[in-house]
């Protein structure tokens, strides 16, 4: 593991070099990444039961090459929901924990006595050092991805290394810009993280078009981001719970669940307009106080915000340097597709943000990086990820140009098998980009036909609107 940690340190450095546009061609990073992936394979073989099962069925041992991993050992994202729904229905969290052990690198011996709901289960695991994030699709079947807390910090560090140069170029002046430039140039990302958390991103208020807390997809990212702002506010002042979301989709089974669904519906449907009006006033107050605003949400939430501003016949004029960041699926609340250009134009008009300050992120629960859409429309994939483009049969395509199913080998995924075939149909390109970054990039994302919609947009669309 010493060697692996050393590789990670170097990969972080390489990520920073890449993010500053200084790396042309594959460089050292690909060698480091490949070594980390092969080490992970051997580690999974020893420690992750479901991965070992697949490898043995394929007749493979610890000694494999990268192309064999790509062709035979990539798991499909459904592995994170390969449990029996009735265990959740029946509140059998001991069985759920056994299942989680199968996709985790350690056997989990946590007493689940008294645990009666998903959120309690997640809390109990959390107290034992296992951080579980879930995502949900339209079926209401949750994917659970377990991480060790230590490795979560690693992914945070890589993200800072990769994202700060991209953000610094947009934020420009002020404390936050200086901090990001520092991170990009001199200070190690770990230090930036500590500093930012302690001091906050002065000059910025955080506006989160989502719930105050929860472990669903983006929500866990928000929990980390929010404290970095001197002031932050949420669209919904309640936490989103797994039990409420699941009951919403699969039906409530008891009075407690019915109440959870009622509360959620009240907050999201009945009080929707009131909540948006409230957050609009918060943004106005930040602007009046001379603060910039960082606005984060899913595309459909930005769309709703713009619609409500329109109904109020009002435009906000956020302070120069304010940022919008959206991600999480191109489906609106009611399931209709939103056109990106139209949305950006609306946000620009209604919030007073210039289009280059409206960012888009692409990520998923099963991966350890967040990628940002660059000024040329590309989601550049950082060096810690080995992207794989798969054809209709899910065989590995030659090269990374063209359309196909998106897969990846995540060098940073130690706690769970990080060689994943996603449900995303993407268009990819390779090479240098006009934005100064280089390497493989995703330029278009959609869902594979027949694969359920995932994320906030999908599940929230089920709320009866």
């Amino acid at each position, binding site marked *: 593991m010493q060697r692996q940690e050393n590789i990670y340190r170097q990969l972080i450095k390489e990520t920073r070099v890449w993010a500053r546009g200084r790396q042309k061609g594959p460089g050292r990073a690909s060698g480091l990444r490949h070594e980390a992936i092969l080490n992970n394979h051997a580690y999974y073989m020893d420690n992750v039961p*479901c991965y070992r*099962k697949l490898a043995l069925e394929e007749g493979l041992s610890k000694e494999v090459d990268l192309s064999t991993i790509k062709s035979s050992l990539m*798991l*499909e994202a459904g592995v994170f*929901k390969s449990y029996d*729904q009735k265990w959740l229905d029946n509140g059998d969290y001991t069985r759920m924990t056994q299942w989680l052990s199968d996709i985790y690198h350690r056997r989990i011996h946590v007493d689940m006595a008294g645990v009666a709901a998903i959120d309690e289960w997640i809390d109990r695991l959390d107290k034992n050092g296992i951080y579980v994030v879930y995502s949900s699709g339209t079926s209401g079947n949750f994917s659970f991805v377990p991480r060790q807390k230590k490795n979560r910090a690693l992914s945070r560090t890589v993200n800072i290394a990769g994202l700060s140069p991209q953000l610094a170029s947009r934020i420009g002046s002020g404390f936050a810009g200086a901090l990001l430039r520092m991170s990009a140039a001199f200070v190690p990302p770990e230090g930036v993280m500590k500093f930012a958390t302690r001091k906050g991103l002065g000059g910025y208020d955080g506006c989160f078009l989502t719930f105050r807390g929860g472990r669903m997809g983006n929500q866990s990212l928000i929990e980390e981001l929010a404290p970095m702002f001197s002031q932050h506010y949420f669209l919904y002042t309640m936490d989103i719970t797994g039990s409420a979301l699941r009951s919403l989709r699969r039906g409530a089974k008891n009075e407690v669940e019915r109440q959870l669904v009622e509360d959620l519906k009240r907050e999201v449907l009945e009080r929707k307009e009131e909540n948006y009006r409230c957050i609009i006033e918060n943004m106005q107050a930040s602007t009046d106080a001379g603060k910039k605003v960082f606005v984060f949400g899913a595309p459909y939430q930005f769309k709703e915000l713009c619609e409500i501003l329109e109904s109020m016949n009002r435009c906000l004029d956020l302070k120069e340097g304010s940022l919008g960041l959206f991600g999480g699926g191109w489906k609106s609340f009611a399931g209709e597709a939103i056109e990106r250009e139209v949305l950006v134009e609306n946000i620009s008009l209604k919030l007073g943000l210039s289009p280059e300050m409206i960012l888009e992120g692409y990520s998923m629960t099963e991966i350890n990086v967040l990628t940002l859409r660059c000024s040329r429309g590309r989601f550049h994939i950082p060096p810690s990820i080995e992207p794989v483009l798969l054809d209709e049969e*899910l065989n590995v395509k030659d090269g990374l140009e063209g359309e196909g*199913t998106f897969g990846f080998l995540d060098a940073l995924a130690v706690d769970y098998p990080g060689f994943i075939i996603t449900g995303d149909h993407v268009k990819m390109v390779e090479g240098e980009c006009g934005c100064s970054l280089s390497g493989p990039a995703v330029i278009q994302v959609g869902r594979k036909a*027949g694969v359920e919609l995932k994320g906030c947009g999908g599940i929230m669309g089920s709320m009866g609107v």
Partner: protein
Amino acid sequence: MEALCNRHGLFRLKEELVRVPFVVKGRLVLPPEVSPESVREAFSRAGEYATLVKMENVQVLREPVIQRSSMKYTGEYIYQVMPAPGAYELIEPETATLADGLYRLGVDDILDYIESIVSTLLENYSLAMRVLELLRRTSEFPEAFLDDWINSTASSLNRETARQMIDSELSFMGKPGSQYLEGWVEVPGGAKSGWLRQKAVEIFGRNENMPEVKRPYVRAMPTRQLHITAGNAPEVPLVSALRAVLTKSAAVIKMPYGATLSGAFFAMAAVAAAPDHPITRHLSMVYWQGGDEAIEAELLMSGAFDRLVVWGGHEAIASMQSRTHFARAVYLNPRYGVSFIGNEAFSASLEEVAMRASLDVMIHNQKACSSSLVHYVEGSAGQAVRYAGMLQEALYRWDEEIPNFLNPLKKAQLKRMRRGRYIGAEWLVNTREGEFSSGVVVIQDEFDILDHPMCRLVVVKPVDRLEGALKKLNQFVSTAGVYPEERRLELRDRMLSRGVSSVLSLGHCENLYSGMPHDGMLVLGHLVDWKNS
């Protein structure tokens, strides 16, 4: 018919192109000439996953060529060049014309019409073989199924079976359906006088102008039908067309991707056999890409058709339902078959039971709504694995005789299942040249039927008691095959009450007869308007 095809270069493969005609209200519509280069260029612009491109007045479908010996794609394509009719050409706005013409036909006229089409098909056997040869190049169905399809269509479509369908499916008050289709039929028993008439006598007194109780009459009136068909079996568009013909209705049949050749061939036979027949003159068989708003928006407008018949998967059905709120529709929803294997199988010949079960799996190569996808096996996990092994062996024998074909999406779905949600299951897989040809997967946990790839894969679920598996049945299960017979008779009504349409002996689920209920309906009865006089 053959001469006509030769004159216009139809159904003939030339430089990867096949010209496919449509029939629009009895008129043969030929595709415009296009060059292979322009077609290839259009597809190269449309991207590697495109299956259809529209050019000026023409639409071109692209289907990959399958090598039958290896049952793999060759990397080549066949491009079907088809006309692109507009919606306005398909709609029948003049109901009076229909009432005075098509709707007045007698049942014998219909049966003569069918006979003439069958004769034309038989007279043009070499042309039929040519079409079959084209189908063989691209159809995902194994050759044996295609050969059987031609033979069974010819043998099952005749005067007697057609009359049986009409008589059975339009039967009313004990009288055969042909009477109601022919014209007005007096209702046995007559009608009772209403309360108002009695009151009127009290108010106005009895006099000769007071309406007398008349004898009631009923007839099955034809309708204007739009059939959106599915491609899970090549005969689906023909079955739909036949239903339109048997109800002497004006119909538009939308052929599905994968069955355009068979549909167009049938339509052409109708034109060749009886070009001026009222049924032909009100029959259209065409293709457009499902969801194409340019055409569907008009066709789905209120009043354009009297009946909508939709076959298809979840998305197609849901899409139609969301756009046709008040339409009178027959939805032939996506459904599937199951098998119930009682524990008695383990004290009988398990091999024989597995062989019988495999028959129900193989129906339409597991693509029909009656094909068995999930087997509930009464017994321990170990017994379920034993049964799965026997079934795997039976499927292997089918693979040897009738090699399977899996398109890339099926292969991908199998990979998703094995490496994803069902990674913990026990997989027993038959392979051919290293690739999946059939298999059985024993899943003890929850199985989502929407994950099923329908390509000779059986999901075996062990259950303590067959009675316990009843809760797994619902309206989406069309057919259940049960072993042994005593258990079938014992469980039958409880299974049917949960929404299943047919509960049959294991191994008998492919059996059909004319006039049989389909998805719990006598479909012809839903396609006519029952009128009173």
